[in-house]
């Protein structure tokens, strides 16, 4: 995607075009409900934390096995309104990923295909700006899975708590030299980012718990760094 990492106005243009061009009615509805605008403050923006658990890192060989979402805003994380879907993988499970996700073959044997839950998923996300930790996974896997099934793409702007964290810790030259000389590197893993804000450790790899963890992290980043009036257009990517 050429828009990736570019300024807010590019996303606005992209979204406008997708509202017109999306062919699948579910995607069409999703893009039409996508109300986040670059000029909105974070305080005004309805948000939804999104986490996708996969069997690996390569969308061509690995599959999504669960998706979790937790709607929230800057005051409240609505964990009680969370949704989570287990999905039947497109490619066979590799045994190491089974232990990683606490999900077994039996759990997935009767799980639906992404196509069957897509309407639910997109409705849950409707009108909310997605928040993820490390957008590359969510974006590449969703894009690949949707393109395989519908023949068109599902790409949308997100707030990436990992990218924000990297931005906060953009280091001066001296620090980079120190790092180059063997100092430790700042970890951007979700748990490590959370720990910097006094957030507790959660056991990872439940999609909906990771989504909760991501929502909490964004609230902490806003409280500590960004402020409630930060503009969506400066943050989405």
């Amino acid at each position, binding site marked *: 995607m050429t828009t990736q990492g570019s300024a807010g106005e590019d996303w606005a243009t992209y979204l406008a075009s997708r509202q017109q061009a999306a062919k699948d009615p579910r995607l069409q509805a999703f893009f039409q409900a996508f109300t986040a605008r670059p000029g909105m403050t974070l305080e005004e923006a309805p948000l939804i934390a999104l986490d996708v658990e996969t069997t690996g890192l390569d969308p061509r060989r690995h599959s999504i096995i669960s998706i*979790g979402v937790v709607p929230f805003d800057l*005051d*409240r*994380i*609505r*964990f*009680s309104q*969370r949704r*989570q879907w287990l999905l039947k993988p497109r490619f066979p499970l590799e045994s190491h990923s089974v232990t990683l996700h*606490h999900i077994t073959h039996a759990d997935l044997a009767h799980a639906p295909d992404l196509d069957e839950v897509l309407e639910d998923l997109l409705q849950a996300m409707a009108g909310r700006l997605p928040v993820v930790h490390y957008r590359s996974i969510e974006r590449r896997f969703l894009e690949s899975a949707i393109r395989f099934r519908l023949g068109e793409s599902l790409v949308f702007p997100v707030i990436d708590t990992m990218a924000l964290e990297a931005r906060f810790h953009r280091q001066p030259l001296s620090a980079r030299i120190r790092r180059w000389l063997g100092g430790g590197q700042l970890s951007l893993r979700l748990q490590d980012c959370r720990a910097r*804000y*006094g*957030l*507790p450790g*959660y*056991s990872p790899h*439940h*999609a*909906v*718990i990771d989504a*909760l963890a991501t*929502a*909490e992290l964004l*609230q*902490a980043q806003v*409280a*500590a760094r960004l402020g409630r009036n930060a503009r969506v257009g400066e943050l989405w990517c």
Partner: protein
Amino acid sequence: MQPEVMEIRQHLSRFAPFDVLSDELLDTVADSVDAAYFKAGSDILTRDAPVTELYYIRSGAVDIFRRSGALHNRLEEGDIFGHFSLLRNHRAHFPAKAMEDTLLYLIPEALFERLCAEDEQFADFVELDQPRLKSVVEKHAGDARMMTTRVRKLITRPPVLVDATLSVQDAAQQITDAHASAALVLAEPDDNPRHTILAEDGQTRRLLGIVTDSDFRRSVVAEGRACDTPIGEIVAEHAFTVQSDEILQDAMLAMLRNNVKHMPVLHRRRPIGILHLSDIVRHQTHTGLYLADRIFSQPNAEALAKLLPDVRESFVRMVEEGANAEMMGAALSTIGRSFTRRLLELAEAELGPPPVPYAFMALGSMARNEQTIVTDQDNALVLDDDFDPTQHDDYFLALARRVSDGLAACGYTYCTGGIMATNPRWRQPLATWKKYFQDWLDNPTPERLLHSSIFFDLDAVCGEDAFVAQLQDLIASGAPRSPRFLAAMARNASNRTPPLGFFRNFVMEKDGKKNNTINVKRRGTAPMVDLIRVHALACGSTAQNSYDRLNDIAQTDLLPSGVSERIRYALEFISMVRIRHQAIALQRDQPPGNSVQPENISSAERHNLKDAFQLLSDAQKFLQFRYPIPAGRR
């Protein structure tokens, strides 16, 4: 349950009051939480903000402030807040602020209400502090030894078994030979398995009933029956039996219900003894009496001192068996008084009879019947008014020394303030003692009374009880009429204040300071006793024991309704914490003391202690308000 909420459920399940919830309710809570993050220093609830949920601290720390801005409480991981407002007007009574970066879980009000309705312990926890303390104290009382001791513990010997065909005379002979007072009467088995037992020889018999001494009076002698009447004719059939592993409490209730004083005790089908109602009563008071008995049989002071390990052992045993603070205080004071009396007996045996009558007076905790295992001696001598110092004082000094040294050897350390009969000031005739008390009542200032409060807990241990009773009467009639005296006592009763509560492994002080340890006597029981004393003096009570004083106070309108009850529960709770920790120290072969480290206090104990401290603090404030220094008379 959905596996993803395990994360939240597990955390909740570690903390009160969620730790007591059923799995089903706990799942519902975990399923229903929302979350919110607060940076250190940010407001969570401002004053009078609407409160529509229960706040649970998942991580971080939250300060709760009073309206005055003073710190009311510092909460940590696993603590809750907002329940006070949810139960009342849904407005934040006390503002809440994140002390550290804090993650909260929010539990919706509807669910909070459901938890209160469906789980009594949860409701107790979140309701007013005092009912919570009350339920804890009562629960503890329910756990007392009657509830945990099994019947078999009281059985010391096998029952006398007699055949139904035996003559009443032979049966009486067998009972007498066995130094017993009852026997079980057996007959040939019938079809009813309920009464079938296995006798010693392994044969099956039928338990016909129990025959006791009084049956011989009532059914044989009074009715003029012959000595060769078969015993089976006089026994009332249908013996109630009790299994040896049943709880003593249940056995006692069964005896009361069936109006019997003896019950056959069976182990499965084998009779192993007879339980007497009097055994149960004796068991409850056993420890203290047993030791008192031994104390009076010791030949000299050295032998008495050797009983110290026994005293400590019985202290630990009483705690283990679930005695409450009131029982512990009474038992240990009985032991302390017994030591004192025996030492006086021994001293008189050596020094000869006293030249004039005297009363040996206990002061402080012994007078209140509230001694623990860590106690110093506070005592005095009240002598007959015929006392002539030049002639008689040598005798009484020698007497006082023997008692004081003897008590010190038995573990009652010398009073560092010199409040002992060995001090000539506190070895005086009754008239002088009356002057002392009259002077304290007439010319009170907080400074003058600072070290005198101990004299207002006084009781006779030995000798002329009437001397001490006269002093008690003088105080009870004078104190209520002296507002200045009460005000001075009230002022001093507020000198020692409780801490705010606990935070992690620290004791939180009201000024936000943290300490590593807390003296639960100085910061808890002693100020509580002090304030009870002031109210008791104000209402002219002659009771010395704090619980008795509270009963007297409750008869008056000195305190708002229900407050004396709450003070009782708080005193009981703090006292038990102190006693339990002393028992733990003794079990670990460490010297028992009054200091407790927060890390040794369980989470439930912390909550209750905090409530008790809060109540003490409020009661101290009320004391100042109730007994103000009279205007212009300072």
